[in-house]
């Protein structure tokens, strides 16, 4: 039972990691399009360096977790 709970937990975390990558990718894409059409608007509300950093961390974590 504990093994099953651990497996479920790992699956959910892996899923969250993947969805986080999708969400942050979508956010960066939205930011790129927004900046192209309305320069300065996205940068006003989001720290792009932070978002990009989180995206990289999420991708790395996702890859490491899946590999593990």
């Amino acid at each position, binding site marked *: 039972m504990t093994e099953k709970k651990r497996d479920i937990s790992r699956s959910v975390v892996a899923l969250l990691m993947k969805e986080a990558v999708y969400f942050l990718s979508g*956010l960066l894409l*939205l930011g790129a399009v927004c900046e192209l059409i309305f320069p300065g*608007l996205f940068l006003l509300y*989001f*720290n792009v360096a*932070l978002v990009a950093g989180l995206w990289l961390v999420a991708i790395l974590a996702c890859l490491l977790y899946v590999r593990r």
Partner: protein
Amino acid sequence: MLKIIKNIRIFWLALLGLIVLFFAYQLVSPTGAWTCSQDFSRNYYGLLSGSSCLGSASPSERVARSQNGSLLVLAEPVYFSVFSPRAFSRAEVEISYRPQLSSATPIFEAGFLADKKLWRYQLQPVYNLWLERGLAGWHEVADGNLRLWQRQPKFDSISDFLSTWRRAGVCTSGSCLAVYNLDLTQMPPALNLANLNQVKTDSIFPYALRGAHQFYLYSPDGQLELSGSIQDLNNNKDRDDAEILVFAGQHQIAQVSLPDQRPELEESGNISSAQAFKLSKEDLNPGLYRVEFKAGDDLILASFRSASIYLSAINKVWPVTDGPVSLLTDASYLQLKAVDPVALQTVVLGQASLEMKEIYRQYELRHRVNGVQAVTLERGGVVLENNGVFAGSAESLLNPDYPRFDRFAPLAEQLDFVLAEYNLSSVGEDGWLTSSLDFAVSDFYRENGRYSLILSVPGLNLDNGAGGLIEIKEIRVRFYGKSLWEKLRELVLN
């Protein structure tokens, strides 16, 4: 598991959708208002949030940060690029600051870039040291934002002063009234036009001039005739269109457009042949007119003739000639700048002289004697500026403006009255002052969603020893425009 995936996906897609809606709301600004503010004492703009809507102060060497985080303006001017999601019609700028100014740097002004071609900013006063503290020994009378200082208490109220001014003037001789931040459209000119020379004869400005210039002239019979030519230096890459505009007061009455259809290529350095222009108007009222040569620095007004004995350049001349330059000016100082090493030289104003040693550095040359002074240059290429006029001869010198109450104002000598439209700053905690300025920004220059805001403290430089600084705690810009409802109603009704 599929249900979990679906829920998570709906959640972040909805979040992205909300972000898009938020951006759309900001862009449309349906209420018609939008605020950009930065409190320099708080460091929001780092890890967790986006960039400042005010941008960074530039040039960076003119500013510093104090220990409590406030922005220190050490030299002027300082620029900010203020983001706005769309164009608005009005902007209210509120600045919280602590000035440390001196009599050499008494004025702090702020404004927006109104015309990019002429690099013209529209400024309003934030803080005027003399007007805030009062002129020692002078009598003050106020009515709303209008303030009058009198050396002797001749008038009991502003309305009394204004009616006397309009009816009969207030100066017995010379110009005894200085003005500051005043709309003079309803006020009489500083000159009695009946005393001007009514002879109609041609005047030619004696030197070719580079870039934008303005001129005063007088038409005794209501006829206006202007002619001249322009040349293109073709140093920059932009097309160099020009315009000649004629104004009676603030009202434009004539215009000549000179589009750049010259065959020489831009950036070639090949000076174009002279392109002539002519403008004639009859049936005008006899009186004063202002002519504006609206052009960039790549154009030269090679020749300029007017059928008026009076022809004076307003506030600025940039003569283009290899030979010596001799002009007259009615101001007691000059601000000088050279952009070419060849133009560096010694400039003479009356009995005073100054040797220019660096390009792109603004020099100041003062002559303590009032009245018309001779300006002498060894050769052209120097930009000469002041708050007066420049003319080729005493007969053609004409200045209908009142002296401006700025750091060059001859307080101790000839002035009896100072009239200003000025809001006193409000005093807050810890000595922080707050001033509010209102601008109509619908025609102001806006590039990539940003307005250019300038903070100006004339005379405040890093290297001239005048000293002083401005400590800024917060800048808040509130934009106002048509709301979504008003816009829709306008579309439906039209």
